[in-house]
């Protein structure tokens, strides 16, 4: 340990080994798969909404990766079947998430398909779920004296909106809801080998 160069070379070689295993290995398996038949690419509006989801940091409270029934009751909660790598072929960047301060959203569109519900919930979550700790996003909406033609008026209980005003969704809110409603992976799972089946294996062995 008295020379700089060998130290650096070995250190880099170890990292290269890890990169081969953790980055190149999964990439070789995952990147070549075909999109599932039931999964459509995002539309332009959905992609704009997805960017809104990223921009507001929704991922820090909402995962998009239901676990298998052998591990956790995610299916029973209506979050959907365990997801596989094939469910994310159109996702860039990925939004798997690591927190469930809020529920999993991979099938939010299938579970909560009402546009009106989604808009009200984004404007003021506590108008629908009183104990919710989700942030309200009033800046995605406009409070107007009167709705103009073509405005999407959001149903908000009087106690949650400025007096005498109507709440109208801005384009950002409409896009975000488009994205949330697009979250639907209820088609049959494909490539179930490309997920962590470490919990199922235990069941089969025993």
């Amino acid at each position, binding site marked *: 340990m008295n020379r700089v160069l060998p130290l650096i070379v070995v250190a880099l070689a*170890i990292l290269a080994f890890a990169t081969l295993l953790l980055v190149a290995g999964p990439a070789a398996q995952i990147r070549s798969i075909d999109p599932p038949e039931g999964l459509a690419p995002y539309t332009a509006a959905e992609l704009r909404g997805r960017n809104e989801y990223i921009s507001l940091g929704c*991922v820090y409270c909402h995962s998009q*990766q239901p676990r298998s029934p052998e*591990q956790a*009751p995610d299916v029973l909660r209506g979050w959907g079947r365990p997801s596989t790598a094939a469910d994310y072929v159109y996702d860039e960047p990925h939004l798997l998430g690591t927190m469930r301060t809020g529920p999993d959203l991979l099938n939010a569109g299938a579970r909560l398909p009402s546009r009106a519900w989604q808009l009200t919930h984004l404007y003021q979550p506590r108008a629908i779920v009183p104990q919710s700790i989700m942030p*309200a*996003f009033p800046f995605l909406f406009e409070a107007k004296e009167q709705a103009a033609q073509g405005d999407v008026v959001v149903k908000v209980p009087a106690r949650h909106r400025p007096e005498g005003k109507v709440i109208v969704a801005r384009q950002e809110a409409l896009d975000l809801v488009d994205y949330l409603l697009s979250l639907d992976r209820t088609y049959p799972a494909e490539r179930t080998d490309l997920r962590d089946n470490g919990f199922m294996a235990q069941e089969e062995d025993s």
Partner: protein
Amino acid sequence: MNFTIGTLLAFSFAASLIAIAALIWAISTHQFRITESDARTVFGDEEGGKLDDPTSPHSDSHPSAVDPALSPEWRRLLIVMFVTATAWLVFGSIFGLIASLKLHLPDWLTGSAALTFGRMRTMHLNSVIYGFLSLGGVGAALWLVPTLFKTHLHKPRLAMLGAVIWNLAVFAGVIVIGAGWNDGLEWLEIPWQIDIFLAIGGACFAIPLLYTAAARRVNHIYVTGWYYLGGLVWFPVLFLLANLPGVHSGAQQATTNWWFAHNVLGLWLTPLGLGAAYYFIPKIIGKPIYSYRLSLLGFWALALFYSQVGMHHLIGGPVPTWVVSLSVVQSVMMVVPVVAVAINQHTLSLGNLWAWRESLPLRFVALGAILYTLASLQGSLEAVRAFNTVTHFTHYTVAHAHLGAYGFVALVLFGGIYYMLPRVTGRAWPMPWAISLHFWLVVAGFAVYFISLTIGGWLQGLAMLDATRDWLASMEVTLPYLAGRSLGGALMTLGHLVFAANLAVLFFGRTRRFEDDSDDVATPATATSTGA
């Protein structure tokens, strides 16, 4: 397919085991040319054997004398590093506190998108990781590497350019995250267009340190140097590969994301923290670490195992089973380097409890090193599938992340800065009581923070696994603990403000003036040894 993948998994694990066995053999049969006396490198030309702490009245070190080896450019660089690191700490703490409060006061400050939880939390993370911890850690390296190599810092102006570029890039990154532009990946939120400047800034730090290493005047590279050199070559590779635009997508991108994110902790912040701890603990106490050869095992085992643990963030997720299992196994193997480091550092610090009473910087550093051990052992446990099933997706993980990044790295940096700045500025800390106040505020605050989130997260996980309870129960059960976390976070933030105030008075106060002629600070006895 299963056969080849199973084989690959077995191969990678076997390769790691063989490497570690070879390492143990090499150490025990003296294949490395290191001896226990090399551990005394930290003492330089001095004997060691007595307390060395510029904040203690019972120490011989003279805080009023600037370290004679420091050239003016080098001094200015270190001051810029530590002052901007502290500024990022204050900003980052405020963002973090706001984010924490918003989790139990959801209708507070909802008027602007920049203030929403998802952005505040992300501005917090990027401020403290890339601002505070990276600048502070590299700042320590910019002082320790030349000091250990008995030379001066080469190319200090390039490093200063790096400090400016890095700060501007983090600033731009935090601002655009607040404005809603980010790359969408945890730990990689700063847009890649700005990351280019972080990479340039990082290179401006690495090149002077590599030049300095090449021009060293000692034969042996002390263990601190291994960690710093490792971190300096690892981070650029990680950062560049993970940020390549248009290359990664879908579930594959998730593996790259967590390969990067865990390696930022394991191969960047951990080396910065451990490198500093390996210097300051023996240096302040005046005695070498317990077993110098053991530190070799600690370093190489860290490199081998830590680099492969990232997929434990995707347990139960949509990535191949083998890669998750690999990371689970390597996470558990992390016990090896952690115990090696623990034996080395804690036997020394806990065997000299008098020094804990005597020296506040040591208290920070040695406590930080102990929390590294705890965070790492907890991390190994959390990677076990059964345990992870409870803690994944909960605040338990957030508590754990703070035990590592804050309890370990931040505390070590606090102690390091308290030790280094008197040497760099030639001034004693103007408010010694504030150091003690800082220590107790952040220790008490962090205890409240960690215990609250750990209990709350565990209950959250149990509730989420209980199919008979509505999901909402898993959120509601956390509320008192989230409020507890805000209380702890507020105390920590208060501690940081005390620290920043002490720093401000050090520079701008009237107590002990900065040398008027900062370009000519060498004391007569050592003027000739000034290299720059």
